[in-house]
């Protein structure tokens, strides 16, 4: 895998459309957490998703990955409509990480990634009991691929560490490796640098570039503005469940509505005064 770490925005339009979300709406009783949000993601593109706390970013992710069934709207991957079932979504080629790390804490790093290979392997009960050559081959391939991915995210030396014993930053990277193990075409990262120091954040940015350069599309939720504006080709800003602004980092950065949403508008300033 050759790696070119460039920040040059990939010309999005020339690449194939991978993910398309149209009019996704999620209501919990009277509360509309996500209100008619649409998003397009192309191959080799990094899209950022920003917004104040409670803007509905994670809920939107949950709608995309089938963990929630959206009240309205449609999600398509490569033109096929995705059913709102996590299993089908992963099989179709969309993988995610979690905001609050959800690793299998009492499994080793390698085992965690091997679980990610589950949906791309096929040996079932009888094969597993008989242990024929096919089983051995698949098991060895799974192990090898998992090790490869750990090397890829820079955890090659921590293979046998229990996930719970790993430093925070490594846990976040392990989650990315586990998600990559499902052979996705698009990777959804929910706050991949939360709790990281500047050096780790930097490393994570290079890792995401590397993943993008290998042909995947990436969608990132993040609160670290510098990180997001350095990383993304396109940024979407959600406020109170609604899509406020969409554009290049430069456009979003200078949009007064975005600044208002984060720092607060006039009336809110008065309130706090």
């Amino acid at each position: 895998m050759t790696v070119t770490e460039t920040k040059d925005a990939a010309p999005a339009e020339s690449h194939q459309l991978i993910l398309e979300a149209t009019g996704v709406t999620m209501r919990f009783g009277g509360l509309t957490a996500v209100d008619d949000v649409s998003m397009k993601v192309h191959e080799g593109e990094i899209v950022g998703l920003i917004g104040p706390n409670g803007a509905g970013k994670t809920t939107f992710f949950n709608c995309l990955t089938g963990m929630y069934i959206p009240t309205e709207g449609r999600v398509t991957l490569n033109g096929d409509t995705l059913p709102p079932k996590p299993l089908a979504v992963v099989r179709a080629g969309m993988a995610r990480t979690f905001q609050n790390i959800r690793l299998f804490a009492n499994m080793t790093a390698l085992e965690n990634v091997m679980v990610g290979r589950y949906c791309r392997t096929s040996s079932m009960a009888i094969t597993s009991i008989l242990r024929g050559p096919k089983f051995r081959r698949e098991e060895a391939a799974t192990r090898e691929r998992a090790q490869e991915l750990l090397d890829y995210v820079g955890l090659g030396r921590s293979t046998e560490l229990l996930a719970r014993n790993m430093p925070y930053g490594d846990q976040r990277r392990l989650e990315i490796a586990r998600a990559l193990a499902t052979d996705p075409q698009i990777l959804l990262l929910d706050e991949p640098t939360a709790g990281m120091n500047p050096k780790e954040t930097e490393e994570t940015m290079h890792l995401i570039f590397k993943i993008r350069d290998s042909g995947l599309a990436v969608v990132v939720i993040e609160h670290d503005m510098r990180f997001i504006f350095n990383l993304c080709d396109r940024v979407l800003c959600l406020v109170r469940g609604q899509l406020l602004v969409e554009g290049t980092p430069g456009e979003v950065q200078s949009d007064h509505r975005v600044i208002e949403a984060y720092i607060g508008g006039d009336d809110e300033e008065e309130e706090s005064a």
Partner: protein
Amino acid sequence: MSKLRFSDEVRVAQGPRAPWLAITGGALMLISGLLSWSFDNRILGDISVRFYPAGIQLYAMLFGLLAVILGVLLLRRPPWMSPARGLRILGITAIVFLVWVLGSIAYKTSGLINLNEGGWVALVGAVLITLAGHLSPDVDINVMKWPRLSSTLEIGIIIVLMATLLFTVAYTLNIQDGVIFASFLVAIIGMVGGLLGTGFGGYLGFVAANNRRPLLLAAFLVAFLFPFTQNGSDANMSIATQILIFAATALGLNIVVGLAGLLDLGYVAFLGTGAYVGAMLSSSAFSTVGWHPPFVVVMLVGAATAATFGLIIGTPTLRVSGDYLAIVTLGFGEIFRLAMFNLDGNNGPDLTNGPNGIPAIPDLNFFGFDFGVEHTLAGIPLGRFSNYYFLLLLLLMFVILVFTRLNDSRIGRGWVAIREDERAAEAMGVNVFGLKLLAFAVGAFLAGLAGTIKAHQDTSVSPDQYVFLESAFLLAAVVLGGMGTVMGVLVGATILKLLPEKLREVNEYRLLIFGLLLVVMMRFRPEGLVPNKRRQLEFHEEDTELVELVQAEHLHEAK
């Protein structure tokens, strides 16, 4: 966890004396075995004669020997074990042992005055051992410093252990007196607990992990040789076969409960399904079906029927998480029993003869080998139950094979992931529903398989054999022994089946005692007697020593 905790200062001040205290205590217990414990030579074996230890006196001497060894170890201070903790457990169980024994002697001879010097000497020894344990400081066990022996020596350790196991089992089964049996039990618990308490158990596990194949071979050899120690007597073999059936079924349940993390409260219904199929397809005169295929076919039909039932009740209920499954399986267990009770021709088709069940099921016959008669091998007679014992041993081997291989595969990893975080597992592409259903079906299949053999061994089936209490006992064996391990279930099943047979005096309080036992277990060791390390971590999130131990094992395996 003991409440008798001395302050650290006292420990440091008295530290150097503790080993000698332990050695003295051990020596006293050793000597006590040679003394007379009571003038009355009619009770508890013969413990009245000096310099001729019998039964209980021997156990006291074993306690003493172990205490001396631990005392010497305390002097040498190896970095990989903590003799202090072992001494504490040993000392306290020794006191319990002696209180029980001395109390029994006093009760049987009507008065403490009838005790001779031996008992008192032993009691003083036990108190000294306990004191030594509490006075010596704990050592943080460094698992990286386990001694590395040559593989021949390690295999030697395994052989010695297994031989001890065979001898102990044969010896245990031959104890007839309830009081002696109970005291033996306390002695065994004390000695095993004392050894494990020192951290020696972790080392043994390490040796066992290094020599999986020799260990398996030795274990099955021991199991295979057991009938030959019984001299053709069927009394103990009948208990042994019951234990095997129970263990094989509980191990099937452990796939559902321990590996997949599902609570099944009606598991015995699957055993019953297998048994009824076995009975109906047998050539019993009361069989209601005209088709009598060879037994291999019967086994497959029984297992497949059970698995089908498993799929039928699993499909709708496994989609919802939580306690629904427990309630549905509880209901299924009752439905099964009532259905068997009522399918007598009056209320439906005549399949099961209702409450009478299907009696007079003939013994198995494999190619002219009649399971019902006595065979002689190498001059040793092997009775009817021995024949079934060997068949059941094969079944148990098969169940263990299925259990371990499924556990160590893509499917096993999926089960662990589901147990750890079901939502995350699903989001990572693990087919949660499919894997749960698989566990359920495999568990049912194995129980059905065991059931077909059970029908022949019991010679009859009736609805009252498959009541909820049996399911509860199977579950208790799994929980008591250790969820997710083979060894644990074998231990749990043995305890739950052996104790009621041997302690007939307290049989009326059986349920009370088991209930208490389970409550105590849940308080002090919720992960079971022989826990799965990962399961143990799930129960003790904060135990850093345990985390280190598991981590060290993983690192070692990787090499």
